[in-house]
């Protein structure tokens, strides 16, 4: 005797969140059954393995049928095929678009192309995330990227509205889209210690302060009157801003300005930090490093290397001198503020816009 057909359909679609997670994680039905069995559902309900298998199959089928709808989540609310209560719909969507930190770290900044998709089996082997799950996550990135690409207006808000995601998840997707669009290099060995959350934070900073959408109101970039609905307003760095950054060069090319800047910072920091001597000796190098990054950002290639430059030119020297995070904060604060006191330095607004982001990025990235 064998079960040929076994179907259970409820008027209100019945879904088990645990099984949904197994499905998302790319478990086969048999694996899922095994895990559920170990989880002790059986004793609880006196059910047999067949019962569990049949239930798992039903759920998997339901999810497969739902998947098409999840690709454009707005459809889930007004489709007629499944009757799903709204809070469940939200759960389905949120979980479907959730991703693994390890996985996203691997593809962050890569082109979301067919070629990358082909390499997913390597990524899967490396991260331990099943290939099926990798594909789903990758396709999600690509889908969000494609939709957002053609839309005007603020990136996070667009993602939130189109995919009905939570604010946090929408911000993460914005970071992924931003990285994929600007093709930031994140795979170099020196950057391996950085997590996705580090990058997502930095992306948030860049989007908030350096993009077209950020123009006009640096302090509260989300205020609605700024939404001048330019295409790609949050995805591309503002050209003019990058161009202007060249002006900062004076801070390192003008000998007097550099010395003056150094002495201001040193006065402020004296006695407040244990690494004062190292800081004093290294000041010119560090300052050159930061300003040079700013000056070169007009080149696409250098934009890509933004993070690696930050690490090489600034973070690594400091780390080898054993600066603490506190030292770093102190230095960057005074380094930024001292520039205002320099009488011949005229680019205060530009400097603040640049250093605000650099400071928060470095502080986020400065860990082991």
């Amino acid at each position, binding site marked *: *005797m*064998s*079960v*040929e*057909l*076994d*179907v*259970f*359909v*409820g*008027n*209100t*679609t*019945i*879904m*088990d*969140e*645990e099984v949904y997670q197994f499905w998302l994680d790319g478990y086969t039905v048999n694996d899922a059954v095994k895990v559920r069995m170990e*989880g*002790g*559902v059986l004793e*609880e*309900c*006196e*059910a*047999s393995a*067949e*019962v*569990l298998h*049949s*239930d798992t*199959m*039903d759920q998997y*089928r*339901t999810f*497969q*049928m739902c998947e098409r709808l999840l690709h454009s989540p*707005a*459809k889930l*609310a*007004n*489709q*007629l*095929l*499944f*009757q799903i*209560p*709204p*809070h*469940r*719909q*939200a*759960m389905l969507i*949120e979980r479907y678009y959730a991703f693994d930190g390890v996985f996203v770290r691997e593809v962050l900044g890569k082109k979301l192309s067919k070629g990358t998709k082909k390499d997913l089996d390597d990524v899967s082997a490396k991260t331990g995330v099943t290939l099926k799950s990798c594909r789903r996550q990758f396709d999600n990135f690509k889908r969000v990227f494609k939709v957002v690409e053609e839309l005007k207006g603020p990136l996070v808000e667009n993602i*939130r*509205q189109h995919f*009905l995601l*939570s604010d946090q998840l929408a911000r993460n997707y914005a970071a992924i889209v931003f990285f994929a669009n600007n093709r930031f290099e994140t795979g170099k060995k020196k950057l391996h210690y950085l997590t996705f959350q580090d990058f997502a934070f930095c992306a948030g900073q860049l989007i908030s302060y350096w993009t077209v959408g950020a123009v006009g109101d640096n302090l509260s970039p989300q205020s609605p009157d700024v939404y001048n609905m330019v295409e790609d307003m949050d995805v591309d760095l503002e050209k003019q801003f990058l161009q202007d950054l060249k002006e900062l060069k004076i801070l390192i090319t003008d000998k007097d300005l550099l010395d003056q800047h150094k002495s201001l910072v040193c006065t402020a920091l004296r006695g407040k930090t244990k690494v004062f001597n190292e800081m004093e000796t290294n000041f010119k190098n560090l300052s050159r490093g930061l300003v040079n990054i700013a000056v070169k950002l007009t080149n696409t290639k250098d934009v890509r290397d933004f993070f690696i430059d930050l690490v090489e030119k600034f973070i690594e020297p400091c780390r080898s001198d054993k600066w603490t995070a506190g030292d770093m904060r102190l230095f960057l604060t005074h380094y930024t503020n001292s520039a205002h006191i320099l009488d011949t330095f005229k680019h205060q607004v530009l400097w603040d816009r640049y250093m605000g982001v650099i400071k928060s990025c470095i502080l986020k990235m400065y860990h082991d």
Partner: protein
Amino acid sequence: MPGKLKAKIVAGRHLPVMDRASDLTDAFVEVKFGNTTFKTDVFPKSLNPQWNSEWFKFEVDDEDLQDEPLQITVLDHDTYSANDAIGKVYIDIDPLLCSEAATRICGWFPIYDTIHGIRGEINVLVKVDLFNDLNSFRQSSCGVKFFCTTSIPRCYRAALVHGFVEELVVNEDPEYQWIDRIRTPRASNEARQRLISLMSGELQRKIGLKVLEMGGNAVVGYLQCFDLEGESGLVVRAIGTASPNTNTHSNTAPASNACNSPSKDSKETLPSSSPPPFSPSKPCSRQSSSSDTDLSLTPKMGKTSPPPHAPHPEFPFFTLTCFPPGFLVHVGGVVSARSVKLLDRIHNPDEPETRDAWWEEIRQEIKSHAKALGCHAVVGYSESTSICEEVCILSASGTAAMLNPRFMREGCLDDASPPSCGFCHIPYDEFNMPFPAQLTYCYRCRRQKVPDVLFTTIDLPAEAAVTGKGCLIQARLCRTKKKAQGEVNATAISNLLPFMEYELHTQLMNKLKLRSMNALFGLRIQISVGENMLLGLASATGVYLSALPAPGGIQVAGKTPSDLNYDQHIATMQKRINDTITKNKELYNIHPPESTEELVGSPIPDRQRSRLFRSTSESSDELLELDLSHGKKDAFVLERGSVTMSINMFVSSGFYSCNTEVMPGIYNWTSGLQMFTSVRVYRLSNANLTNQGLNKIFTELCENLLKSLYFKLRSMIPCCLCHVNFTVAVPEEELIQMGAVRLNCVCVCGCVFVCLFVSGSGENEDQLQFSMELCADSTPSNNQPTSKPSERCSPLPEGRSRSLRSTRSMPCGAPVAVVKMTPLSFLPGTRIVKYLGIINMFFIRETTSLREEGGVSGFLHCFIAEVFAMVRAHVAALGGNAVVSYSMKECVFMENPNKNQAQCLINVSGDAVIFVRESEQEATPPLMSSGQISSTGADGTT
């Protein structure tokens, strides 16, 4: 020319991509009614077209309005080749023909294609203007209301119950016409869907005519069936109970006590204060037949039976299962009749139809059984068929009963509350019993005689006093038979039938005793025929009626009481049985008051038998009565009965099940509910085709299905499966490889309904605590007692926060309204304020890419979900928010894995209604706001 039908096509959405090049679709719509067709403009290059068409107007006879569906076809315009069909929507106009039902049909309908399933949705607006037509010779019966509900619908009052109406329409099945060889599967499916839609429209119209003739204006308990007789044709038949209803709307029920006791609720529609002039049983079981070929013929009237308005009806049939209090005086017992027929091609459907004669024969037989039981009426009556190739088993069953003549004549009873035991008292003469039975004085009133057990097909009367809780009791049986043809086959089957009935009955008796109960309600015995086996499945809800004596125990007796081992074995078995009985008493909370004096006042010898009356006939009215009684007081389980014993010991705490509307003994219901359909098909290998082996397998299947349901619904515990409806079928045997294994399928299709209630003592605290649990998303607590935290608690807080946000971020388009579906005639905790009309839909789905669609399970899963979606959409378009008395009448599944093909037919029916919650009925208008609906919809799900 008494009607104008108007339709407007508003918009479409989520259409499929029909043009690969542009990834878009150039859609337009054809609206067809009868022979008239209108078209909308092409809306180019869009998957969400906005046609916003003019009003398409059809001027039609009301006869056509009743028969024909409005047919809406969505097509993709193609400049060079033929336009591709995207899909169709059939809209039944009938609900618009009653003045009190729906006024318009308006909403989103799934666009359905028999090959691809649902492909997008279309927004349609339909209205009907009816002109008054006083022509007494008319062929239409507009205005007659139909209800699937087998009780007097809750917001109506029956002024009069006329009695039985039946009708039957025959046609050739398009699937078997010669043209089917040259047309596409899609065309063939659509022809079939359309034909059946036409036939059921015609059937309904003709039944309506009969009702009008009787002076009625409604049909309750309308039951329509299809017999797919294959080569020999297609039969659509229907039975119902005619009655003129008066709408009472909300003025009757005192709302206070209805909320937590549905059993009380049923009384309220007929309150004693406003006496309903109930005068049923006019002689209206008039039977006529008509059989048409080309769907356009006048019915042949009055072929047989009593003339339309004979003065006294001898044997009224009632398809109702639930009655106003005081209506039923006595209940005799189950009466049933079966007959085996050989189908032959309906050569000339215009000729007086043989099928009508067959049913007539069976009804006569039922009548005579009822008479033998001293009863003048049959209630809870139903008819069914099982077809395998050319053999057809026709079955009918009901419950013989005495109805209150005073109630019928005067329509008024002064003593408002009828005695709670009255219906148990025997209707027949004590000294002239139709069969041996053991009588005692009623345990409640001590005045009248009652039998020791009572089997019925009706629901438990509201006034009945019950001890403890009820439970689902099933008897399952397989019998092999030789493969044969024609006459020989039919004879073999009809020879087997009595034995099967006997065996099923014995099983039911034993199981009843094992649970120490003494009555069965809602008994439904299904016998299905396959090529080399017969299946019998009897389901009923067992209860302990306080008025009846306590059942005796079960005594085990060996066949050969010789050696010691064997005796020991028997002794242990006996002990096991006794333990089980004790355990069950505990489980079902059956603690009857110890009656000290055994009032066995019956002079009848010490024998016991229940009232299952049946007979088998083969083309003749031969009445076969079996004396099923045993010589002892206690029932008897033979050694081989160990099979029987092992059966039912699966018990899941917190789960109850029954196949009646309400679970006896449980009154505190919550409103969370979940309707579901489960289908299983098993393949049997040739090896275990012995009676024993098959029985075991069959029993396991049913048990497994139940277990599976319990597991699925574990998150709703404590809960109750109500109206569990098992259907079995043995599809035709098919030979897969040449000379290799023969395969047989058994399909168990349960259309089951879940309802939540509070278990245990029913204290108020309990209820509170539980309802908190139910609305899990509003309580972040982790105090669910029955589940492990990992199972249920963890996701809750998250779910909550998400739901808050999601309501904000949902796109502005109105979310889909929740439509509840239930096989019950009511929704717990709510009040039905309006009946919008009958839903009766027939769908065919076929696939030629079975593997790609996830195999047979994937295919059927999708199809059932689609059927639900279409039912919901139609109800929502009528302005309703629920379907009650929903049932899946037919689910025929055929596959051919070699060709990667499968086909499935589903027929569903129910009543579209508007309900309001008890608590808010004063405040809110009929239609609930979507917020309310969705919040309640969330309750019952996990």
